[in-house]
């Protein structure tokens, strides 16, 4: 009863005072990827008085649009224009070089802002947990992608592409296809992209001729999309190898394809590619699609101690029925593939920060339509007041840029509903320091903030460096270079 009264009173407060502009709603979005920017955009539209700050641990905005999306996908990056307009909105600011968890804690942020939306993505990896996983030459696709995309934390990866002619990629999703394409594509075509210059140089000297894309299940279950598949099948001078027997569909597969347009079109493309006559080794490079194999262990090289020399696979068959329900079961038959480079593309994973409820099994923050829940019991009434989540941290690491748009719509709708229902203390009833408080605190801690106009200096320096090489930009990819350009 008492609760109801408080709720009613709060409701009255927020309704009657929410339009009070002298005490605007202070919102902090953590992470400046698509989820962060779409959240900011939708917040500014839904709450015209709101002040929205976007913090990011990097001096550069845009998250995986900058450090994930492949360099040869410039069209996908055009969305940066839209995000930049959001950052330039007078009630929005970008504060780069600010890390949640070290520059500032979650509890501090929640004290400073009415609403905190966590959109900091997924910066770790799932692991296989099989023998040999820590051998040299085995990387996660995330690390490899950061490396070729000039992420300052990927700079030192330095993968050895010169001492082997084969690479195995574990996984057949879009990220797997991206890294395979980067390994196989003629470097002359990559030279005019924004690929990191050291990565281009390493790829130019690469001796890798054979790339194996390996999946546990069959072509009807491949996790990629037709767009990415069409692209890799169209690379010049690459022989494509797909075993036609693998393409045979069981009734359960047929059922699966019937209900899934993407999978159906992917299967069609694979079938067409398999039927194409091969050029009998005339091409320099080969791409092998390998289905029904699960990695069992990694083999160590005899002459290069501590280095991977191959992957030991167990063959699989599918069991279980119903669309999406078929799982791969080992048959007890094994097969090796020799290689000096392994890229694990089996999924990104989010990492929690102090004080944040986290579902370790799913690798996401437990939430009800973007409202952070206090535990993983799934009870939607146990809410963390004023705390929300969006993007990969909310749904897990799947989906395209546009998925985050819908994801942000849902989260912002939840925030609006909570304000409307008085579930959230109104900004008028309790003014909060917001940006000013944050800036003060960061100054006390000697954190050098990179503002959006500082980023624009980095941006124009990168474009200037790129223009002489016929590239859209030449990325600055060390912390030092980035900070120097921002401070200029």
């Amino acid at each position, binding site marked *: 009863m008492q609760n109801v009264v408080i709720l009613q009173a709060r409701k009255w407060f927020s309704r009657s005072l929410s339009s009070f502009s002298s005490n605007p709603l202070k919102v902090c979005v953590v992470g400046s990827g698509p989820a962060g920017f779409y959240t900011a955009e939708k917040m500014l539209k839904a709450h015209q008085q709101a002040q929205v700050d976007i913090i990011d641990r990097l001096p550069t905005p845009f998250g995986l649009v900058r450090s994930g999306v492949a360099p040869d*996908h410039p069209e*996908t990056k*055009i969305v940066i224009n839209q995000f930049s307009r959001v950052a330039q909105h007078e009630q929005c600011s970008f504060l780069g070089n600010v890390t949640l968890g070290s520059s500032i804690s979650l509890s501090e942020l929640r004290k400073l802002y009415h609403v905190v939306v966590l959109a900091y993505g997924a910066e770790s990896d799932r692991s296989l947990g099989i023998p040999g996983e820590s051998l040299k030459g085995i990387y996660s696709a995330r690390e490899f992608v950061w490396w070729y995309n000039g992420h300052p934390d990927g700079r030192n990866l330095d993968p050895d592409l010169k001492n082997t002619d084969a690479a195995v990629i574990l996984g057949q999703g879009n990220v797997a296809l991206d890294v395979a394409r980067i390994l196989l594509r003629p470097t002359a075509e990559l030279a005019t992209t924004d690929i990191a210059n050291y990565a281009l140089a390493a790829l130019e000297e690469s001796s890798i001729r054979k790339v194996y894309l390996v999946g546990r299940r069959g072509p009807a279950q491949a996790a990629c999309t037709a767009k990415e598949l069409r692209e890799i099948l169209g690379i010049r001078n690459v022989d494509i190898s797909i075993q036609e027997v693998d393409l045979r569909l069981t009734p359960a597969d047929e059922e699966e394809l019937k209900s899934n347009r993407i999978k159906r079109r992917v299967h069609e493309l694979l079938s067409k590619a398999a039927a194409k006559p091969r050029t009998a080794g005339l091409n320099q490079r080969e791409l092998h699609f390998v289905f029904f194999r699960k990695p069992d262990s990694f083999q160590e090289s005899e002459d290069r101690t501590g280095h991977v020399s191959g992957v030991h696979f167990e063959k699989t068959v599918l069991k279980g029925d119903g669309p999406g329900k078929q799982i791969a079961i080992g048959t007890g038959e094994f097969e090796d593939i020799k290689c000096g480079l392994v890229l694990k593309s089996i999924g990104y994973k989010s990492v929690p920060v102090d004080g944040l409820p986290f579902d370790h099994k799913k690798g996401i923050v437990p939430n009800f339509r973007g409202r952070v829940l206090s535990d993983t019991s799934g009870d939607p009434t146990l809410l963390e007041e004023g705390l929300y989540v969006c993007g990969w941290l909310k749904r897990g690491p799947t989906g*395209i840029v546009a998925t985050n748009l819908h994801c942000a719509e849902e989260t912002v709708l939840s925030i609006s509903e909570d304000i409307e229902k008085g579930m959230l203390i109104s900004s008028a009833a309790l003014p909060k320091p917001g940006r000013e408080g944050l800036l003060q605190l960061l100054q006390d801690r000697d954190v050098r903030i990179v503002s959006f106009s500082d980023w624009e200096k980095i941006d124009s320096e990168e474009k200037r460096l790129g223009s002489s090489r016929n590239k859209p930009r030449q990325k600055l990819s060390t912390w030092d270079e980035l900070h120097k350009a921002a401070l200029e």
Partner: protein
Amino acid sequence: MEDFVAFDFLLLEIDFIVTTFAIGKGNSPKIFDVGVWYFCLNGTSDSGISVTFVDKDGEEQHIRVPVGMSMLEAAHENDIELEGACEGSLACSTCHVIVMDVEYYNKLEDPTDEENDMLDLAFGLSETSRLGCQVIAKPELDGIRLAIPAATRNFAVDGYVPKPH
């Protein structure tokens, strides 16, 4: 048969008169709508075709779109909230629209493989879905109605089950 032709011709004449009237009078959109079809065919007007956008809440907006312009550009020129993350370069699927009338859908050229690849990823895909940046105004499309899918609802329904690898 003769009757039919005469009737058709009559219609055309009426339309033509109405159109002329509309031009003369300035901007009465209702009358204008009826006449523009023939007018465009004559190539004597660049006043475009009539297009209706139906937004997420079911509200309608009527606009005129010059022949040759994409529905994405047209929406943006008229402050209609149609997303266009990749600015029409066929790389995002955010400009997804649903053609509300199959007859109009059939008047469109078939989507290319590349458009279908992006449509695969569109939210709330329907039998008559297209990408707004790929639908270009032409006279036959006069009167077309395009719904902007209600993303949030679809999103909640779709859910997000992490894919096994």
